[in-house]
């Protein structure tokens, strides 16, 4: 086995130097924005602007989707190059996914697999160039975890679909360019055979976006009121949305894997080293050390499961239950870490004021513990999927869909 994330062929070493220098240059002056617990931790314009700009610069270098074909905006590079990019940007607490403020990371692969040549040519270059903010728009108020029970209707009318319905709990504090969504294209059709995927310009008439103020920050409700979407934006063909979803959602559900180190632990160590109580550094306190030990174990297990899934994805042998297992663990670890941060920092853990300690993200960690118990499913649906993949109580095991 080899857990090393640093391939060391001369060519790759040179590329790593190049990436490292480029990042150092382009991160200059924005070090304080290195990491947030999530896109929307801070909800300030400065961070948004910085990240979108960085995505654009990375995209211009074709480094956002390095292994994708050149003609679509990728660089046609090897998996080793992607490792380099992921691991180097991870040092800034970012990832190729999280610089975006968009879900292109999930959308582009699905377009690659299911899009027509025309769709690819139109959508992929600006997306891989980091120019677009795309939101995934999935959850409906009635459906909740049951995404197949989609009530947003898209009825064919000439060259358009007329879309009506509502989605909730999506996006963040600043508006998107495109929406990527599940619609019911055949209300009379059978479950799982009546759905379509649509790629919808966010500026079309009839779309209203309203902020929702949530525990984790701002998200949105989106209303579609007779929105005319060109039929050519249907991805994967008529009534084929569930198939698109299947390979696509596995990515969101943990199957994509990750090479990231979670920055929370290092930040907390730094905090404990510089904070005293009763004349002694918190790092010398046995209670604090015990909490840190538990946290480190959880984060290491999470890191390794992410790494495992990443590896399985890229050798094209999807891990059967690895995706939902990672997601389930991640939710539980986030919840436990929320409590741990409060145990270590006390009231300060509830306070996002930067002047208290440099780490605004601690407060985000506390509220995102319970806040992110759902999102792309719940603890309960994660376990439902794991059970199917393990074939518990069933004669056979369900395969993980091949991710895109």
């Amino acid at each position, binding site marked *: 086995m080899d857990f090393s994330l640093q391939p060391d062929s001369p060519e790759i070493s040179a590329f790593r130097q190049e990436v490292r220098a480029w990042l150092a240059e382009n991160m200059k002056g924005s070090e304080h924005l290195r990491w947030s617990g999530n896109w929307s931790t801070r909800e300030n314009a400065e961070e948004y602007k910085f990240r979108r700009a960085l995505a654009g610069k990375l995209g211009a270098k074709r480094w956002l989707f390095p292994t994708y074909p050149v003609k679509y905006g990728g660089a046609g590079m090897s998996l080793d190059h992607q490792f380099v990019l992921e691991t180097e940007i991870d040092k800034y607490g970012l990832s190729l996914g999280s610089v975006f403020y968009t879900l292109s990371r999930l959308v582009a692969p699905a377009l690659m697999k299911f899009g027509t040549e025309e769709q690819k040519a139109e959508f992929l270059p600006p997306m891989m160039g980091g120019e677009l903010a795309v939101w995934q728009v999935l*959850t409906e*108020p009635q*459906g*909740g*975890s*049951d995404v197949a*029970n989609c009530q947003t209707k898209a009825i064919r009318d000439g060259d358009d679909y007329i879309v009506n319905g509502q989605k*909730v*709990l999506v996006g963040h504090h600043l508006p998107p360019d495109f929406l990527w969504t599940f619609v019911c294209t055949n209300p009379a059709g059978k479950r799982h055979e009546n759905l379509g995927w649509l790629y919808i310009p966010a500026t079309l008439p009839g779309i209203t976006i309203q902020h*929702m*103020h*949530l*525990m*984790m920050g701002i998200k949105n409700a989106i209303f579609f009121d007779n929105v005319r979407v060109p039929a050519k934006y249907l991805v994967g063909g008529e009534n084929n949305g569930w198939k698109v979803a299947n390979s696509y959602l596995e990515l969101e559900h943990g199957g994509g894997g990750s090479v990231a180190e979670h920055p929370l632990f290092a930040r907390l160590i730094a905090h404990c080293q510089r904070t005293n*109580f*009763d004349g002694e550094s*918190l790092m010398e306190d046995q*209670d604090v050390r015990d909490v840190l030990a538990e946290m480190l174990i959880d984060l290491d297990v999470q890191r390794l499961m992410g790494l495992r899934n990443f590896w399985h994805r890229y050798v094209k042998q999807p891990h059967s239950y690895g995706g939902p297992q990672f997601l389930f663990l991640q939710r539980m670890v986030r*919840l436990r870490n929320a*409590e741990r941060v*409060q*145990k*270590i*920092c*006390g*009231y*300060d853990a*509830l*306070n*996002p*004021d930067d002047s208290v300690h440099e780490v605004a993200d601690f*407060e985000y960690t*506390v*509220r995102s*513990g*319970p*806040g992110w*118990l*759902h*999102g792309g499913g*719940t*603890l*309960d649906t994660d*376990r439902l999927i794991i059970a199917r993949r393990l074939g518990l109580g069933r004669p056979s095991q369900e395969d993980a869909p091949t991710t895109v």
Partner: protein
Amino acid sequence: MDLKLNDDQNMMKKVAADFLKAEAPSHVITDWYQKKIAHLPEIYKKTAGVGWLGMTLPDEFGGGGSSATDCGVVFEELGRGPLPGPFFSCGVLAAQILLDGGSAAQQKAWLPKICDGSAIVIPALSDDPIQFGPKSVATRATKSASGFTLSGTKRYVQDGDAASHFICAARTDSGGVILALVDRQAPGVAVKAVSGFMIGAAEVSFTNVAVGADALIGALDEGWPVVLAALTKALPILCAYQVGACQEIFEMTNEYTRTRVVFGQPIGRFQRVQDHCVDISIHLDGARWITYETLWKLDSGIAATAGAHQSKAVASEAYYQSCHFAHMVFAGAGTDYKHPLMAHSVLAHALYQYLGTPLFHKRAMIDAMYPRKTA
């Protein structure tokens, strides 16, 4: 043995429930919490009228002379709201500190005002954001000609912004802790709101605040034992408030399992959803019975120090965890600040810290039962 409420208590419970229904229905409370409104002066005044401020104080001071259990029954209903305001911090804890440690003159001067709501006295004890206890009292009390000069910052004072007066814990040059009654309007006192994922806390700073010798509650350097004695009597009432909150969460969650339909059936038919509710039931009932047994001990003259610490550990943990389990059931909908669960979720995080974390109180419980040789 008799584990039911008596008729009077059932009546008090109903009065409190009706009060909330009229003055502070759930959607209104939800709105207050979203707007971080932690004190409603008008409602606070009205509760004085119903006799909920200083409920356990003797008649002579304008109190209700109620038993701890009676008071717990009322606070349980308030917790269902959860009705915000300094009902506990002033009406129970500060009142008890003054009753236990105040001079006759102080009692006569302040307790009636606490009972009629004209003074809101708030304990400002710990300076440190992490730990509760005498070690975290860092505000200095320097001897002056006429008394003491106080300097320091209490980073998180629950209900601090509602205060007309503070009971400030401060450390003297000899290393002891004094409690001093300080007028919020005194020169050098500053109150700053604290934002974040909590409610009701404010930063209270004392910059060379002069207090007279008559401001001292309890003997010189013997302030902390006064706090401890008052906590034994007060904490179980705060716990009853948290029990009521858990009860409310339990009921709203159970109800949701009946009305919310996903995958073609009410979600309560799914075993996983059921188990979240079961987990709440255990936290709720554990907190309930530990709390009420402690209240009974207080009313029966049985030693209750360990029980009070135990109650706080169990009830704060129960409140915190019940919110988590409820979030597992409500999922996205429950994270919206427009949802009644959010008021609880925010408050539970603050009360987890308030007057000591569960770990602090577990240790205090065991220490009360089995004192350490090496202390």
